[in-house]
């Protein structure tokens, strides 16, 4: 019995010590190191324009305007919303419930998946009349796992050039150059996939459009 009591005391004390060591000291030490070594990245790799943050290099955004690249399907709309989305409607429902991440979690056999993709293909073909159905790569019509994917495949970017050129008034070569500049190759030539960061590409399109207007 005395042994049991002694064991309990040790168990309680070790819990408290580890509470402090692992729960406090460790995360604070890592934060100090991270903020000192990689200040920009440790704060979310935010992109600033004219002193205001407009997004993060690593997080995609929902784009709907024809002059910008569109990203992959997102079940959380990339956490992008308008002020109206936060105001409850007549049923007390809001369109935007706060920050989250995830996907639709449709099984491959789920009829909802087929329905969603079919609708998205129709919508895309309507907005891009020059694109043929068989040229649409599947990454553009499927939902990413996080709902925040900042990348699309090279092919998914290329089939949008025609539409972007028309809507933005920029020449096609210019847009192809932007794709080229934001193309991320496989790491060391082997690892991962070839992809385009569409948020960074869109920022460039916006800058080019601004310059043209001036």
């Amino acid at each position: 019995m005395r042994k049991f009591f002694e064991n309990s005391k040790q168990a309680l004390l070790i819990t408290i010590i580890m509470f402090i060591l692992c729960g406090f000291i460790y995360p604070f030490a890592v934060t100090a190191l991270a903020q000192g070594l990689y200040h920009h990245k440790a704060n979310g790799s935010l992109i600033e324009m004219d002193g205001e943050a407009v997004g993060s290099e690593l997080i995609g955004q929902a784009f709907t305007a024809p002059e910008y690249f569109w990203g992959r399907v997102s079940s959380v709309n990339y956490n992008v919303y308008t002020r109206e989305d936060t105001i409850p409607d007549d049923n007390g429902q809001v369109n935007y419930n706060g920050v989250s991440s995830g996907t639709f979690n449709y099984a491959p056999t789920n009829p909802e998946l087929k329905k969603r993709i079919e609708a998205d293909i129709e919508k895309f073909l309507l907005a891009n009349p020059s694109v043929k159905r068989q040229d649409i790569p599947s990454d553009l019509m499927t939902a990413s796992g996080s709902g925040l994917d900042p990348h699309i495949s090279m092919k998914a970017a290329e089939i949008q050039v025609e539409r972007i050129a028309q809507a933005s008034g920029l020449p096609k070569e210019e847009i192809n150059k932007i794709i080229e500049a934001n193309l991320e190759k496989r790491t060391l030539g082997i690892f991962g996939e070839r992809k385009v960061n569409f948020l960074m590409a869109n920022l460039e399109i916006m800058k080019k459009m601004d310059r043209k207007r001036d």
Partner: protein
Amino acid sequence: MWQIAIVLIIYLPLVILTGHYLYRVTLQQKTWLDPLLDKVDTVIYKVCGIKRVDMTGKEYVLSLILSNAFMVFMGYIILRIQALLFLNPNNINNMEETLSFNTIISFMTNTNLQHYSGESGLSYLSQMLVIIFMMFTSAATGYAACMAFCRRLVAKTDTIGNFFIDFVRVITRILMPFSIVVAIILVSQGLPQTFSANKTVQTIEGKLQDIAIGPIASLESIKHIGTNGGGFNGANSTTPFENPTVLSNIVEMLSMMLLPGACVVAFSLMVSHRKKKAIFGKQGLAIFTAMSILFLAGLVTVYIAEKAGNPIISELGITQELGSMEGKEMRFGVAQSALFTTVTTAFTTGSINNMHDTLTPLGGLVPMFNMMLNVVFGGKGVGLMNMMMYVLLTIFIACLMIGRSPQFLGKKIEEKEMKLIALCILIHPAIILLFSALAVATPSGIAGITNPGAHGLSQVLYEFASASANNGSGFEGLADNSTFWNVTTGLAMFFGRYLTISIQLAIASLLAKKVWHSDSVGTLKTDNTTFTLLLVAIVLMIGALTFLPALALGPITEHLQLYS
């Protein structure tokens, strides 16, 4: 294909090096961090009143359960009052009762099944004081148990090792230094590490975007090093802030593969230490090879299944060159996703870099089967112990067939041990299948299912396999934050962890007390290729026989429907 092979090749030297380090830590031999860490340890021992006395198997298990109980208690309180405490810049509310119960069991048992979403469910303080804290302590608990187990297999007495000392040494010498290094590497790839509140930015289309940040890197490193797997964000390592690049993906995979593999290496050294020093002891190598065969078979299956894509999407007339991309991230593609899926379920971590619910039927069958077997490396030490159950079973069956008396490492395996081994092997399938049956038989269980048809059953099976194997990944479509699911999976995790560990240590205690016999010509060799293949066969036979009916109704039916 090459990118997968290269990662695995990098893994081999790393795991052997770490195994040797783990061996030195376990046997309290000198390591180069000693001058600093000896002082830290001494302070901790002094404050806690820990004495360097050896414990019996029973005392060891009791100390393990007692300390875990205190941790559960403290963590539960924090979750219930987090809104009142500091470090809560995003104004998160207190967690509801059954959800808190589930969460706390989940993290204490190293499962990390998450029925909440980190961005909206936990304050930064809870992420640190509950989640990070438990990620360290639950992993250390698992390793301590494994050390106690291995020591007893080679010892001649049951009074050996002290739980508190093992526990502290694992944290200060392995988990903590490794986590700090990995966290900094991850920050260099873009993981945030800050205490400031989430950012709201204005997009160039004039809308608003919320960006969730926080002390993510410090959680992410121990999440993988300790094979925990619970994400800072709801979507776990699929989110760019938890896994921004291919490099971070590889670092996270190697982190979770490192220690479970190293346990086998350390065990191999403990077993062979009397003979001349080897890089990788023969007995351990036989077990490591058996695990690797099962691992590679699973990996190839997932890769082929995902690369083939979804025939229903092909029918819609778009091009599917990249393979099945639903639920996957563009930066990882099929290859990196398939590897991560196999690794996270084989090494029972449970973090995900793609959504398992959206995997093709056969691609989803593999992670489920890995967790049902629960011996393909397995997590944080307990994987090795589970495999040892099969090793003992294989020896027993093989010896029955050739008419010799079963013996392992000089200890005879007799009736009492065999009864416990059989019990231990049966608990895991019993938990999974009985709870699954309960779930599909009750309205509140069925209410959680979100995909129609055979996949619905897969969702249920996966959830309980994950809970019982202490894995923590999920077919995330399952609407699992309800009283039914919180309580049933909570119980599955609890029994899957503590019943199994207690029985395994009891078996080790029994073996430790036995008289040692030297090997004779008649002894079955347990460190050659024949034994490895026999072990794989027994694991598959037991696994296949127990789970085949359930798998046939779930993923296999779905596969046939998809291709009909």
